[in-house]
């Protein structure tokens, strides 16, 4: 039975190194000006600053899928890098018309609409792009689809956890309790 691929962020552990952003850009060939994962910093420069990598969260009931008028966005069952059947939310860029309705429907602001693309990429101007768990690169290719969530695999502090929700939930809970204990040991000082 297919399981859901998700992201969980241990925000206390994220150091804003940008590894998730960089590996995503590199592996999915995402052009300048578009980011499938963005690192949002809260209280920047003040004690208590926190960083959160935000991307498509691959919702179980995706509002973007319900909003899409051309059925370009859909939940698909694909193989992950271990050969398991997993459910991810993908976008078929050939069907997308760039109406922007999914951008309104998504509570995380994940859909991106690239502009200023030149050369071979000009075809994808204004067409929605988002995280697909590394299943579909920026320029869609034919072939075997494999979910990888490389941002999670390459996260230097394991703040970004991506994969089978059943597996990453235990890692998340452990990391969360450790970070909370460390926080308490420091007497509430971050």
């Amino acid at each position: 039975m297919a399981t859901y691929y998700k992201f969980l962020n241990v925000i206390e552990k994220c150091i804003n190194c940008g590894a998730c952003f960089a590996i995503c850009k590199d592996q999915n060939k995402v052009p300048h000006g578009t980011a499938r994962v963005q690192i949002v910093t809260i209280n920047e420069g003040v004690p208590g600053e926190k960083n959160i990598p935000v991307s498509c969260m691959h919702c179980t009931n995706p509002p973007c899928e319900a909003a899409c008028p051309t059925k370009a966005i859909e939940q698909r069952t694909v193989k992950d890098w271990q050969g398991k059947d997993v459910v991810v939310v993908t976008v078929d860029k050939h069907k997308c018309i760039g109406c922007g309705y999914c951008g309104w429907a998504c509570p995380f602001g994940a859909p991106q609409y690239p502009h200023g693309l030149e050369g071979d990429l000009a075809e994808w101007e204004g067409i929605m792009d988002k995280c697909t768990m590394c299943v579909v690169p920026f320029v869609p290719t034919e072939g075997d689809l494999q979910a990888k969530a490389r941002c999670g695999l390459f996260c230097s502090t394991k703040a970004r956890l991506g994969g089978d929700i059943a597996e990453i939930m235990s890692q998340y809970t452990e990391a969360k309790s450790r970070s909370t204990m460390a926080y308490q040991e420091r007497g509430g000082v971050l």
Partner: protein
Amino acid sequence: MSSAVTSYVIFTVFSQMSVGALIAMMIADFLAKSKDDEKFFETGAWVSVPVAVIALIGILSHEARPIQAMMTMTMNSFIFGGTSMLSNEVLALTVFVILAVVYTILWLLHPEYGSLKWFPIFPAIVGKFMPLRKPVGVLATLVGLVFLYISATAYMMYTLPSFNNPTTIFFFFVTALLAGVTAVGAVLSVKYLMKKQGDVPLGRMLWVTMGIAVVMLVVLIIALMAQTSMLEAETTRYAAMAQHETLEGMLSGDYATFYMARWVVGVGLALVCALALALPLKKKSMATAAMIAVVLFVLVLVGEILGRAVLFGTNVPLGHVLPDIGGFYSTLGL
């Protein structure tokens, strides 16, 4: 104002105005008591379809693939009965435009008084279908009203907290009736001013225009006042943040000038103008009434465009509250 906001403003205002103009022509159809009256009203039939075309150009101009958008959304709508609220909106608009075109043809190609009666063959054919004009008009009106409702609900998503309240429905219906009816009233007034004929039918039409305009402006005032209070009624912290940003943009931010101008021009002056229409109509001073009707339409159109620019320009989707996402995470206990 971004190009996307401009597209939404053009699409929503003009598509709704198109529905309202058709409703106005339906009213005119029932008001006409003779062939002369119908001949006078016929000019108003030029409004609905061209205005719908402007709306379609407006919405397609912001799509990345306009032709594909037109084809897939319309086809998907017909084949699957709508894949989303947006395709339901397209489906309803397409059916409305088809009916509006048929209804307009039945006016313009009337063998006796149609503007296009000089066309070869067609007026004679259309003349045989003339008894269908009123039923087609009624059907188009019903589909138009359904389109207005679907169009409003398409924007009423929980991820768009500033739209997700009943005032959106009121705004869309008000725009349709206010702008559409005054547009037809203005076109007929211009015709009267140019030809100095049709005192009686124009008088009847302008009384109806005045009545609808006053009622709709009162509804608009209530909706505008309800909007600001409803924007503070959101319960989740995340949605409240989006609504707070919307309110700020509306009352003191980039769109504050537009918002105030909308109240002054589109509500205040328009209401004065609509009420002032009663005096020349009572005195049967049709030239003055016609001029006031034209001014009323201009004020209404400017007001509706300004209001819609505020509505779309200040709209903050939940996804755009990302810099404050800490609030969201803390509400989840993360």
